[in-house]
């Protein structure tokens, strides 16, 4: 029984089949990468998984549960966290506040007790803070705790967003182009972190990536999409040399 599976997943925007009959399974503990040319339906697949879009057909299962119709805000609580292609952070809040928001799925205190800041709220806050500090240590964000996100360079924001996702203690981490906009050095760091996330934290990773070097370094298995359809699946090397994939990238 795999951790995460999509079966015959599909969505249409008007007449366009953005995602068409895609099926794949992600085993617990692996790094599974989706590649494909622009407009292949990769981010749409992510948006379907994190329930921002409603699929027109197909099924999504996670951890033995059907999540095809689960409301989007419950996804994080079930153990799926994500990052975004163009970074969706809370710009006018500090890094610390952003990471603490990552703990929201675990927040159980009520509004009234929040307003009174009762002792159990304080205890919960300190517990959240401890978890967040672990993430800060893991990603070397110590220097930026109190900085507003709007004042951070792009590369750091990317890491903060990764941190926010990690703070929610996910079982499955969705990374939408983790290396986009990063320089070689930062991409290297990202590769190490993804490796550590898989090995040390034991989190399953599902990612979209264009940088084939990074894909080859970290992925266990790769799925290639084109025009919303799956065209190849296998190890990074197998997929890269697959004739359909070569054709999709080089045209023809």
């Amino acid at each position, binding site marked *: 029984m795999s951790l995460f599976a999509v079966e015959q997943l599909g969505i249409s925007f008007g007449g366009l089949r953005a995602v068409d009959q895609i099926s794949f399974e992600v085993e617990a503990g692996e790094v599974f990468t989706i590649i494909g040319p622009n407009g292949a339906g990769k981010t749409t697949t992510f948006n379907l998984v994190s329930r*921002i879009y409603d699929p027109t057909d197909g099924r999504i299962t996670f951890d033995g549960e059907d999540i095809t119709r689960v409301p989007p805000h419950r996804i994080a609580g079930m153990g799926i966290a994500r990052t*975004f292609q*163009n970074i969706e952070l809370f710009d006018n809040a500090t890094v610390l506040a952003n990471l603490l928001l990552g703990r929201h799925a675990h927040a159980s205190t009520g509004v009234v007790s929040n307003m009174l800041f009762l002792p159990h709220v304080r205890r919960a806050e300190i517990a959240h803070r401890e978890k967040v500090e672990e993430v800060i240590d893991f990603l070397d964000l110590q220097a930026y705790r109190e900085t507003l996100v709007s004042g951070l360079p792009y590369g750091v924001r990317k890491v903060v967003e990764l941190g926010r996702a990690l703070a929610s203690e996910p079982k499955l981490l969705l990374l939408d182009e983790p290396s986009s906009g990063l320089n070689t050095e930062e991409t290297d760091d990202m590769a190490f972190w993804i490796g550590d996330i898989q090995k040390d934290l034991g989190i399953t990773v599902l990612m979209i990536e264009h940088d084939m070097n990074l894909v080859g370094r970290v992925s266990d298995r790769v799925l290639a999409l084109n025009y919303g359809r799956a065209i190849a699946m296998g190890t990074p090397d197998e997929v890269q040399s697959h004739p359909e994939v070569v054709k999709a990238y080089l045209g023809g």
Partner: protein
Amino acid sequence: MEGLQQFAQQVVSGTAIGCVYALVALGFVLIYKATEVVNFAQGELMMIGAFLAYTLIVIFGFNFWIGAAIAIVFTALFGAGVERVVMRPMVGQPVFAIIMVTIGLGFLARSIVSMIPGWGVDTYSIETPFYGKVVEVGGLVLSQDHMAVIVLTMALVAVLYLFFRYTRLGVAMQATSQNQLAAYYMGIPVKTVFSMIWGISAGVAAFAGLLLAPIAFVHVNMGFLGIRAFPAAVLGGFGSIPGAIVGGLIIGIVEALAGFYLPEGFKDVAPYVILLIVLIVKPEGLFGTTTRKKV
């Protein structure tokens, strides 16, 4: 039969006032589409246009049409000037701050107009060529003023449509409102276009003021009508020009009918009740489209 006639009469006068709402709403929509600013001073632009026309036509004794044309041109220039001096430095600021600026401008405009000798806080009227005349259509007695408003509004909308559809400048403005950055890269002078859109919008507002003058009066607070044109713009979907027209007409007619058939008080709130109902059922307005941020 009499009841039906009364009904038709109300619909016509509602349509006339609705045309004015539609034009003010059109002004909102033009500016919003291009610059994402909601101009809360749109009603005041209308008021300034009406006062200019009053000054030219009544005080200086110009011919109605010439006076009206000059008033529209000057209001348009004024609108463009406001964009250049006040709004342009605000580009990139939060929408909140920009809305507050336009509210502030509205206060300022009312205050200044009320202090200008010869204008002040009194009410004035402008004699139009149609004043007091009526036409009879199939047993309906319709005032020419109302008919003129409807015909002139249709004419203006047609002119605007042709302008946006077929002229280079109009197409450039449309492009700018769809994607500022892309328009900029294609060599459209985005900043100048913004000024022009404010100018056009102010001109349309002045036109609305002229149309309103014979139905209502010229007064320093006539700009508050702008607040009633908001529901019109939102009803139509705020980004849609045909939507603004239809929204204006709906509000005008509903208001007239509510004023005639329902107890006192309903006339004033009817547009807002309609607005809330429409928004609950269809949050993007009648003609709006939902757009979602891509992530």
